[in-house]
Structure formats: C-alpha cells, structure tokens
C-alpha cells in the first residue's frame, strides 16, 4: 500500500440549527486505500460523505485533497477535483438510456456546435461499461428496463467515469451503502471492481451496515458514534464483535436474534396458500402460516418470494390458486382489502412505499387504523397523538415529538414508525419485507426483540430477511424458493438452526 496521503479532513463539523450532527472529524485517506465508515444510523456517516462530495457545506473545518485545500462548491466541482459519490438512493433517470445517464451533465464533451453526437457518446459508454465488466448492458438500453442491481452498477460506472476522467488514478470514490440492493453474486462483482480501482491507485470510502462486507473489503475502518469519530481500527485482525463493540459501546452476545425467546408456533393455521401462481413470477406455491409463527421466505432476488408476499398483501393479483385466512377463502383487490382481512405489510422500499414523509409521526402511525381513535365517526386528534406517543415510548422511537415530520427521522426510527403503524392496525398477520434494510445495528436489535414480543402475543409473521443469517435467526420455519417454485422447507427451532450452506445450496 502506498503511504502517500490523498485526502484529509481537519476538524470538520456540521450543525443544522441547534442540532449538531457532526463534530471534530479528522480522517485521513491514503492513495490506494479502501476505508470503511461504520456507525449506527444518525451517527453522521452519510453527512460526512455528502460534505466531502460537495453536496453540503461543512459548518466548520477544512479539507485537503492532494495536499491542496479542497472546498467544493457543488458536486460537480468535487467531481472535477476527483471525488465522486454513489448515493444510497439511486439517482439515475429512468427514461434516459444508460449512456445518457452516464454522461448526464457532461454532454459538452460529445457535442459540436451544441449538438450531441450520440454514436460517439454510446461508443464511449460502451468502453466505460466494458471496463467495469458489464458487457451485457447496452448503452442504448433505457434505465427503466434494467433491474436494480444493474442500475447500481451503471451508477458506479457513471461515478467512476466522472472522476477517473480528471483524476488520473488519484480519485476518491465514496460508496454510501452500495450493497443494500445487491445479491451476493452482484456484490462479488462490485467488490472485484472496487479492488481493481484500488490497484490502480484510487481510494474508496465505503459505508455499509453489513459488518462482514466491511471486513471483507476494507483496509482500515473508522467508527462513528453520535456525530463523533470514536475509533480507528485496522481491518487486519479485527472481527465483527470488535467492531460491534466499538460501534454500540457494549459487548455483543449470542442473543443477537433473541433466539431464546423464539415462540413455538401454535397449531391453528391463520393463513393458507394453496397452489397459488402468478404468471411470470411463481407457480404452485403452497404453505401454511400458524399462529405465533415466524415463517421465513428465502431465495435470491427474482425467485418470486417478493411477489408471493405481494399477492398475499393485496398489492398484486394472482393468476390462479387460493388464499385462505383462518379457513375462509379470500380474494384481495387492494391492500385495503387485505388489511380488512387482517393482513398488513411493512414494505421494503421505506422511502417510496413506507413512510408518508411530509406527514407527522402521529398521522403515519394511525393511517392503517383511523377507527381506533374515533368515536361516533369522528377521530379525536388528541387521542391519536396520545396513541402515537405511546408507540413512540414503547418502541423507543427517537424523535422530537409526534408532530415531527417522518422524513426528518433517521432510517431506523422511520422503520420503527412503520412498525408502529402495522401494529396499530391490529392485523394479526404481518408481512415483513426486509424489515431491517438500511437500519442500524441498535435499531435492528430492537426490531428483532419486537418480533419476539408480538409473536408471543399471537401475531403471525411472514418474513423476508435482509440476509440469510437474519432469516434463519429470526424464523421458526423457512421456505426456500428458487425460480418461482418452492424447493425446500426447514424447521428452525431456537436451539437447532439449519446449516446455512444447506439452505444456500437449495437457493442457487
């Protein structure tokens, strides 16, 4: 590894009004180094990256790049100086082609007299994609026709292209949770690319909530807590437990998934799926969900598990098959129908489909069950607020009050609000679609404990885990799906979890 220092920050801090989100940050990035940033949500990792990338300006502190002062006015400015960022939320324009997206905002390079030469742009995009090993993506394809992982790769290609153009292998790439939507295979490709970049002398800052990944790819790790930088760890010799300890400040124990409190499912079947098929997605899926059970659905993306849940929650219509809730045949035209039958879901895409961002916490919690706070057909807002405050307390949601807008909450807390909503709806069957995606470790633990609490009370849960580990750890039984068919089933009692290797074999 090169010892040459590429980038440093000195005493960077950021405050919003009275709210300090970042203070006294001194990081140092060497050339050809991959640095991890870890910390709970709200620890200030993303804010730091945004400051480095020029999206936001620091309140105090200075930065240096290549030994020269660096204070980007905008993201474009940062790009020109060799720093590029891949965002947590995807920022591609779905109606434009891949090539147009890669060179969006930089069309001038391909234009003469203001007119763009499309074939030249496509050729350049082809080269850039090839460099990333994305030979099967056409530069002319529209982004909306690509799947999520492909989009992520295109996005990374775009950022790499922007910075490598100017930086001459002295680039700094910022990856903010790039792996959340990727499958394991795709992740492997991504890591391969990241290593290649490193070999050439570029540096990378990498944020992820999955500690394994961080350990796998980085050279050095900064740990953030409450807007401060609390530790610096060399990856060599570190392990998950050490990191976990540094992050949360307490020692982790084997009770991560709270397995000890795993309930033994009752005998009553609350939900029965019989021979259900959705054309082009899954076929002849049958299973039963018991009272108090956590049933995990495993499978790679595209195995059809998402659509199974989509049908059960009323979001999609099946082509054939039957659905029975407590022995009664049902057919849902909308998620509203499903809710009335006692089924409600925590959607995977929290920002787009979960939170109602501009509404306050109290409204977000009550949206699935307004009747609860109503008398004579009129809703009492006072009761609604009181109800929300109870949820805030019992789920320990960090907020300034129930009138706060949900979009101002951190990911973990917003997710807890959605949990409050589904629990408030009093539906006994919950579908949890990646309930811990993008949620920090502390909140994850809270959510697992919560799942235990509710199953004890007799709720049933259909779970699609963020990782296989989680799926097995939390579920009392798992069903494995592959290519739209159910291909296996494992019992997961608390003391005898199946071997992950066996499950993965079935999935792939």
């Amino acid at each position: 590894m090169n010892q040459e220092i590429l980038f440093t920050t000195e005493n960077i801090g950021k405050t919003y009004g009275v709210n300090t989100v970042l203070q006294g940050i001194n990081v140092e990035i060497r050339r050809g180094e991959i640095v991890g940033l870890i910390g709970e949500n709200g620890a200030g990792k993303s804010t730091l990256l945004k400051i480095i990338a020029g999206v936001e300006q620091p309140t105090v502190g200075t930065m240096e790049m290549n030994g020269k002062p660096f204070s980007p006015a905008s993201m474009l400015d940062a790009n020109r100086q060799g720093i590029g960022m891949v965002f947590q939320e995807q920022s591609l324009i779905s109606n434009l082609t891949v090539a147009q997206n890669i060179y969006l905002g930089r069309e001038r390079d391909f234009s003469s007299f203001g007119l763009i030469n499309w074939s030249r742009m496509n050729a350049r995009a082809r080269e850039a994609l090839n460099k990333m090993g994305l030979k099967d993506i056409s530069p002319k394809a529209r982004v909306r026709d690509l799947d999520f992982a492909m989009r992520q790769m295109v996005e990374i290609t775009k950022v790499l292209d922007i910075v490598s153009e100017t930086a001459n292998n002295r680039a700094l790439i910022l990856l903010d949770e790039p792996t959340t939507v990727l499958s394991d295979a795709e992740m492997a490709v991504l890591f391969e690319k990241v290593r290649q970049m490193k070999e050439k002398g570029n540096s990378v800052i990498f944020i992820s909530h999955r500690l394994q990944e961080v350990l796998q790819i980085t050279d050095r790790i900064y740990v953030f807590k409450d807007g401060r930088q609390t530790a610096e760890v060399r990856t060599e010799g570190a392990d998950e437990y050490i990191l976990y300890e540094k992050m949360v400040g307490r020692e982790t124990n084997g009770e991560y998934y709270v397995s000890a409190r795993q309930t033994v499912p009752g005998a009553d079947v609350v939900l029965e799926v019989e021979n259900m098929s959705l054309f082009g997605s899954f076929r002849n899926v049958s299973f039963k969900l018991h009272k108090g059970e956590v049933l995990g659905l495993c499978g790679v993306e595209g195995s059809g598990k998402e659509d199974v849940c989509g049908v059960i929650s009323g979001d999609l219509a099946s082509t054939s098959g039957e659905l029975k809730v407590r022995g009664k045949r049902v057919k849902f035209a909308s998620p509203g129908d499903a809710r009335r039958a006692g089924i409600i879901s925590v959607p995977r895409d929290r920002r787009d489909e979960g939170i109602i961002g501009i509404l306050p916490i109290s409204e977000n919690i009550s949206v699935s069950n307004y009747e609860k706070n109503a008398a004579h057909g009129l809703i009492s807002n006072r009761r609604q607020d009181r109800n929300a405050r109870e949820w805030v307390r019992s789920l320990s949601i960090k907020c300034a009050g129930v009138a706060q807008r949900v979009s101002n909450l951190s990911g973990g807390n917003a997710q807890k609000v959605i949990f409050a909503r589904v629990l408030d709806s009093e539906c006994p069957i919950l579908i949890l679609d990646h309930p811990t995606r993008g949620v920090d470790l502390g909140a994850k633990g809270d959510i697992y404990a919560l799942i235990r609490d509710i199953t004890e009370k007799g709720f049933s849960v259909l779970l699609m885990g963020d990782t296989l580990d989680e799926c097995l750890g939390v579920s009392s039984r798992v069903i494995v799906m592959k290519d739209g068919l159910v291909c296996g089933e494992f019992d997961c009692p608390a003391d005898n979890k199946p071997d992950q290797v066996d499950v993965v074999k079935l999935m792939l």
Partner: protein
Amino acid sequence: MQNTKTGDFRNVPEGESWRSFLYRNIYIFSAVLVVSVFYIINPSFLSLYSIQNITREMAPLLPMACGIGFVLYTGCIDLSIGAVASAACVITGLNVADVGHWIIPMMLAFGVLIGIVNGSLVSRIKLPSFIVTLCAQSVYRAAAIVLSGGGSQNIALKQRYLVNWMSAIVFGLPLMFWISLGIVLACLIIERNTKLGKSIFAIGANEKAARLAGVDTVRTKTMAFMLCAVGAAIGGVMYAYKLKSSVPAIGDDKFMMAISSVALGGTLFSGGRGSALRTLVGVITVISISSGMNMAGVDPLWNNVVFGIVLIVAVAINSEKGIRDLIIK
C-alpha cells in the same frame, strides 16, 4: 423525555414559542395587509354595508374553493368546477319556482353524481385529472347552455320572493355567508376528524405508501372529487339564489378564482397539505382585492395588471414555511 440528537427541529409545533406560532400562521397576514391597505385608501371599505357586500360575495365562492381544496390535497386538479356551478345555477334558476326548495337536495345529488363520474375516471380508469376534468368541463358547460336556451333567464318577478331568504341579513351578515361558514366548518371537521379527510392527505403525500398501508385509494379519490363537485354545485345554487336567475356563464371564471383562493391560503398544489381555514383566508383576500379595486377607484385598464401583481406577492407571502425540501411544480 423524548429528545434526541437526530431530526430537524425547524417544524416542531409541540410546545412552540409564540414566534414559531406566528411563523406558521403568517398566511393570515396577507389578508390583513390587503384589507388594511384598502381601508387606508378608502375607509368605507370596512363600513357595515361594504362588509355585508364582501361577505355576500364570499358566500358562493367558499364552498367551491373548499371543495376544490380536497382535490388539490390529493395532488389532483378539477378544472370542471366552474362548469358544474354553471349547470347547477341554471338548473336551480329554471326550476326553483316549480320544485321549490327541494331543488337544493336535488342539486347536491347532482354534485355527487358528477363527482362520481369525474372521480371514477381518475381513480379507477387512471386518467390524468387535468384532462378528464378539462373535457368533462365542456360537457357540463354545454348542458348549462342548452338547458338555459343560450342566455340568462331570471326567475319570474312574481316568484322572486321565494329565493329572497337566502340574501336575508342575519346577525348583521347575509344568511348565505353563515351557511358557507358552516360549510367551511364541516370541511374542517372532514379534514381533521374523519377517516376520509386523513386518507385524502395521506394519498396526496405519498399515494403508494398510503395504498400499502391499507388506505382505499380508489374510493378516497372518488370521494375527494365528489366533495369538490358538491361544493361546486352548492356554489352554483347560491349564485342562482343570489342573482335570482339562471346564468349559464356564471362559472366561467370561478375556477380560477377558487384556485387562486386556495393558492392564496398557501396550500401547495403538490398535495398532502392544506386546510379549509387557509382557504377561508384566501377567499377573503381574493374578494377583498376585487372589491377593493372597485372601491379604490383603480382605472379598469389597470385591473389585470394590479390583480396579477397582488396575486404573486400575496401567494409568495403566504406560502407554507418549513417545506423548502419539497419540489414545487
């Protein structure tokens, strides 16, 4: 104590200071400003006669503006309210002498029917509301014109006493204004205290999320259009009672007036926010501007220019604070 490091403290109404209270309620300011400027120019602007006049003008516009508010909260638009008001005004004017006051519930039913048609096209068939209501507007307008035989018809002089009660002065102000205030109150209750109202806001704020949370989006949207059309029909009936005639062109400019009122109240057109109280302030402002310009002796050649500038300034002052992260279209 639920206090934390995360989150944005800028819009936290709980236990707020008087300053932030003022900040949130600044929308009232422009109405006060407009009224006081006209009062300074011409003190008779606030004479009893003038106030009666202004409230009488506000009466029919209020239900229309509050009605279209519901559609705007869902993020849709209804261009047809003017035509619906015209049609309702014509039908009422032509028939009130024969049918008596039964015409009012009939017109409410008429509004419900039209709202269901508009709303179903938008929510079930999923057409853009702009186009649906633009086209529907020409249908309702044609109906108004054909029914009225091409021009205004007044209620026969002998039967005008039938409709006089609506213009009567009660507690110093016209009865129809009190009725409209009642409608505003009803709208406020719908917004704040019913499942329907809350669902409307949820849909406007994030339709996908609201749907997955179990809100019946199709039904709620249809209901929003229904409330809107009913509001327009009430407006039309009030115009018929007020003008004692059926006027097929009465609604032509009412859409823009209603929507300007809503905008003046500071309601966003992107959906999810707004309130009938804001709309009330907006209606006061709009009517004050048009009455005030008459009373201030503005040369009519300047009317449009002055109105446009005042509209921009007032909307800018009133626009809701603390939402700078929203995209305005």
